[in-house]
């Protein structure tokens, strides 16, 4: 399986299929229109950040503040920000990032 090399988040643009690696900086839970629960997490690396939206989820095991994740999916737009809808995600081993 030829995997895409992880891309700096700062270089991601709309309508690109990307794989990114970053740290979860913020989380947001809210009922989406029509009462579908949605989990949104803001993932950042040293270059930038984007939002990952998991529809129909209130929580995902291991997805918590400070966790390191790898996300893969199509970059779309949500509320004026770059976002990946229902990305494939992999939890990465814990590491402390200097910042």
């Amino acid at each position, binding site marked *: 399986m030829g995997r895409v090399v992880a891309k700096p988040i700062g270089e991601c643009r709309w309508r690109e299929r990307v794989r990114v690696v970053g740290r979860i900086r913020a989380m947001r839970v809210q009922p989406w229109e029509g009462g579908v629960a949605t989990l949104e997490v803001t993932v950042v690396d040293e270059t930038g950040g984007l939002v990952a939206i998991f529809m129909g989820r209130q929580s995902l095991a291991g997805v918590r503040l*400070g966790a390191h994740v790898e996300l893969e999916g199509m970059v779309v737009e949500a509320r*004026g920000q770059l976002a990946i809808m229902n990305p494939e995600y992999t939890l990465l081993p814990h590491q*402390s990032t200097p910042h």
Partner: protein
Amino acid sequence: MPSGSLAQDRSTIQPLPPTPKVAIPESKGFRVKSKILGKALDNDQLAHERLGKPTALAVFASDALSSTAYASEEILRTLLFVGAIGTLAFTYLMPITIALIVVLVILVFSYRQTIKAYPSAGGAYIVTKDNLGLLPAQVAGVALLTDYILTVAVSVSAGVAALYSAVPSVYPYRVPVALSFIAIIAVGNLRGVKESGKIFAVPTYLFIISMFLMILTGVYKAVFGGGLAHVVPTHPAALQATGAASIVLILHAFASGGAAMTGVEAISNGVPAFKPVEWKHARETLVVMALLLGFMFLGISWLAAKMQIVPSDTKTVISQAAQAVYGSGALGHALFWFTQAATMLILVLAANTSFADFPRLASFHANDAFMPKQLTKRGHRLVFSNGIIALAIAGAIPVIIFQADVTRLIPLYAIGVFTSFTLSQAGMAKKHVKDKESGWRTGLFVNGLGAFTTGLVTVVIGVFKFQGGAWFIMVLVPVMVFGLVRLNHAYESEKVELEHEAREAAEAPILRYHSVIVLIERLDQSSARAIQYARTLTPDTLKAVHIATDEDAAAELAEEWTRLGLARVPLEVVECPDRRISRCALEVVAEAAADGSTEVSVLIPRREYPRFWHRFLHDHTADAIAKTLSNVPHANVTFVPYHLGAKPVATVELPVGNIAE
């Protein structure tokens, strides 16, 4: 979601910046703190340092081992100065020491049980809470906390005593020196040095080496070197006294020596810090520590008895023993200095053990809502900063009151630690009966014996040190526990009230109307800013209110208001003949909210000053008004800040005489 945006627009959307880019400098306080304490640590940097046995011994044993520096001395002082039994004191010193070592052995066996049963987070508080309930746990905890405070006071004072025994000119400055030791340790702990084992290892092992060297040299001289000569005392009168020894005196001396047992609990508090298998290593370290403690205690008592050392105000027993054993040659002199330095270092470090344990124990209390919640907060460097500061202050107080005099501090000491020993051992005994795990009968016997012995010692200490100062602790602990229980009730009722039907409240229908009131003193930048903000709230009604304490000024404001065409926002001028602005504002707001279906937002312009001393040039009317208005249901106060000096203004020449305000 903004709809209708073109694909062209979307393709230009940039990712979020990696960290929120806000150009606000950190506050001055934070920058000073970072200078003194180092960079703020992140949560995931919480140290999970695991200690090997030799390091762990150094970290956890410094408190216990250091007490040998003064335990023999305190027994002697009781026998010589309280009992005035002359040279008979040296006959009783060894038996009393041995009796205390028997207590130590029982304690070690008891704590071996505790370590195995509570490998995660031991300590008297948890054990007592688990088995005997919350209230006894408060007693155990408070007793232990008072002892940690006294450990700081006693250890630092004893450390200073070691210093002035070698350098007599320090004696007059002992209190400031002791206080600066406490300050240094506190700052070190705020920086987070608490478990960095290497800092501990050196002084602890130096002390162990110096004591072994001194005792073994003494033994050698006694056996092969023609015996040990008696030390010439500074107070020969103490030896000529011929009082009779009584059982009361012996028990009193025993109680004084009980200080040697303090710190034995430290290992059981810190089991998680050991390398796996934690409890096994902790148990082995405990035994090694007890062997060292026992040998050193016995050795020092033996030397003191053999050489008939009389402790004096300016010379500790250890310093006299070292001087006598090593002689006055150059090498002897060097060894004497080495002993004193090692003793001083370990005593100061023993205070550090309290700085590791007190904040953690206080945080347990606070987590159970028995102490102020601030104690659960980890500070700048991930340590319980508030607990550290509290301990530093609390430890400094007895040092000042008792002028860094160990002998006057000792009567207060040890009763707390023995109370917590007793409760935690009783808790363990109950656990054995309750759980009936394999071998519970042996466990019950060991912990039962431990509880009984330590209970007995607690009573002995309480009775025989009562007059000397133990009464203070015996009054203080119940008063504190009572206070903590009251505190707990306050926290609990607060919690119950706040959580009661919180969900329903969050979904309750909103009030029908929204009314915004902007309080205005005069027409200036700060009120203009408040009006601008008020208009973004798009309320049902919006008005500016001026509380007229001065009718002329009010009339002037009203005129200016209409002249500048600010008529879109009506200005209401309210009379305030008695100049109580808060009260007038309260009446205005209460009236607006009176119908029960209006949410009132009160906007108050507030000037923010660039320099802190500017604050003192102005009264704090805005804060006072806000406080008063909070009494009205559905009245909500918002301060609209205006930062003075933030915007450059063309320099205006101030007319002299108009510099009022």
